[in-house]
């Protein structure tokens, strides 16, 4: 029962990334912050793959409390449009940063590490996996 809501969506967090205009906002926000600092993949990693649960109470009896936002998207269905979009964006960012830093060696290592750290949790094989029990509860 969704108290005080006007829709029957149990967890609105799953539909956030499908809302109209959010991809554009995401690109703009990344573009803006990209100009400011180049550590955006780290920021995205924290928000998508570290923070668990929802910022509001949901009537699903806490099923989403142990899931990160990435895992909650579209109720766990893999390869939806939003997931593909969010996978491709770090890759594009990677190409851009490699180009800007003129393929410098140290930057290359840092960029590749950050790209891998963002891409690997998005693999469907790692849905719900917590390595070494980190971030389990």
């Amino acid at each position, binding site marked *: 029962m969704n108290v005080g809501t*006007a829709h*029957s969506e149990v967890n609105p967090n799953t*539909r956030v990334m499908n809302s*109209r*205009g959010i991809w554009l906002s995401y690109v703009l926000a990344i573009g803006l912050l990209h100009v400011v600092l180049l550590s955006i993949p780290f920021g995205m990693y924290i928000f998508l793959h570290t923070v668990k*649960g929802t910022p509001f109470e949901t009537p699903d009896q806490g099923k989403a409390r142990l899931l990160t936002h990435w895992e909650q998207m579209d109720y766990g269905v893999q390869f939806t449009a939003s997931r593909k979009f969010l996978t491709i964006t770090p890759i594009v960012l990677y190409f851009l940063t490699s180009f800007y830093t003129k393929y410098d060696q140290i930057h290359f290592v840092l960029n590749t590490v950050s790209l891998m750290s963002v891409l690997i949790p998005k693999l469907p094989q790692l849905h719900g996996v917590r390595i070494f029990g980190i971030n389990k509860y």
Partner: protein
Amino acid sequence: MANPGGGAVCNGNLHNHKKQSNGSQSGNCRKNGIIKEDQQNGKPHCYKQIVESFEEPPLHVMVFTYLGYGIGTLFGHFRDFLRKCGIEKCNTAIEREKQRDFVPLYQDFENFYTRNLYMRIRDNWNRPICSAPGPQFDIMERVSDDYNWTFRFTGRTIKDVINMGSYNFLGLAARYDESMRTIKEVLEVYGTGVSSTRQEMGTLDKHKELEDLVAKFLNVEAAMVFGMGFATNSMNIPALVGKGCLILSDELNHASLVLGARLSGATIRVFKHNNSQNLEMLLKDAVIYGQPRTHRAWKKILILVEGIYSMEGSILHLPQIVALKNKYKAYLYIDEAHSIGAVGPTGRGVVDFFGMDPREIDVLMGTFTKSFGAAGGYIAGRKDLVDYLRANSHSAAYATSMSPPISEKIITSIKFLMGDDGSTQGLQRIQQLAKNTRYFRKKLSEMGFIVYGNEKSPVVPVLLYMPGKVAAFARSLLQKKIGVVVVGFPATPLAEARARFCISAAHTRKNLNTVLEALDEIGDLLQLKYSRHRKSMRREPYEETSFELDD
């Protein structure tokens, strides 16, 4: 009144009364449940033209809305960090020192939104009022010294605030006057409490009188009333369907319908809002494939819809849904909480609005809270259905029945609406409501606001989108002495925060003009006029689509 030959719109009035008074003789011949053309006048059966709009805003508005939430979230995390460090005072409930090592009762993050976004603007909700919720009311003035964490009443009241938020469609929720004399008498004779359930000692003669009157009003065989509107849905749907049945429920159904559906144990499938193609696809699948693994036929298929959806202002597409239900042999349950008394030429709800026969709907449910100025709900339909509910409804067995003065209020209201007291005031109020609705909606769309819903629905949602504007809108309107209800995420989808206006028949033209002027000013100040379909101020010829109301 003139019926344009083969035109798109058919006047519901005269046609209606004929159908209702003659009852069985209606000239419709049914073949496989599909109604063939009405042979009465040789004219085709014409459905009311449905005009509704759900305009999308320009893309930049959505982007700014998400950025607004994003910045709010970032600041929220920052403030949480400060609270954790101890730099900022923590006003929420925290675990006791002794129990710090225990497993936490609540997850901090789940209250993130409440703590960091809702708290900042929560002075716009739960405002206590201290008068009857008529077209104008009095609000208790309250201030906050610590940014809305606690409130303090100053002792003053803000008088004569124009009420655009109460569901007082016909203006029947008013202070005591001589026309309510019978209610006083009933109070003197019966008292206030019933102290029993319907099945034990709680059935009064007032209930019987009320139920007969409701059945007469809705033109059905029988009706049963319950003490609480929400409980009518949540307690009766489990009595009607159970395991092995299928419920097809609209996306935007009210929490009471969702709760009733979940309590029943039936399989629930959701179809897109008011979308009969989607519903047809689900019905086809259900009939062809049956239950999930065994592929047995479903025991029952029940379609749950509402007459008017209160957050969208849309009116149900009843003719299409009834056609589908007849074709696929499903049952239909309509929750007319917001539409009974508010739409239709005689105020009999969405069935009257479309000029259809109430016997085509299996279960008609409604509440008395909105248009009748009372409390409680009813379920109406065929006599055997209502008799079954009298025996098997959870509400009849466990819940206290309706209080006698409230029953009397509803009896008075229904008699007023039907014109039984000899005057036409009831009908005048219904027409006044329709006039007010049309005027208000027309003016709003002319000004350039995005307004959702059917053009005849008295619930008018005006879209605000950005969370900051939601707060600014409500506060500035209160300063101008207008009270509105605003809603944001998570009650609505993320980017569709809105203000919901409820028009009343008791609003005078002057009230509405005051509100419209204030909206015009605030709309310019807050840049809320997003609509790209501004109608011209000039009235186009042949714009009138219905001739029953004179403007």
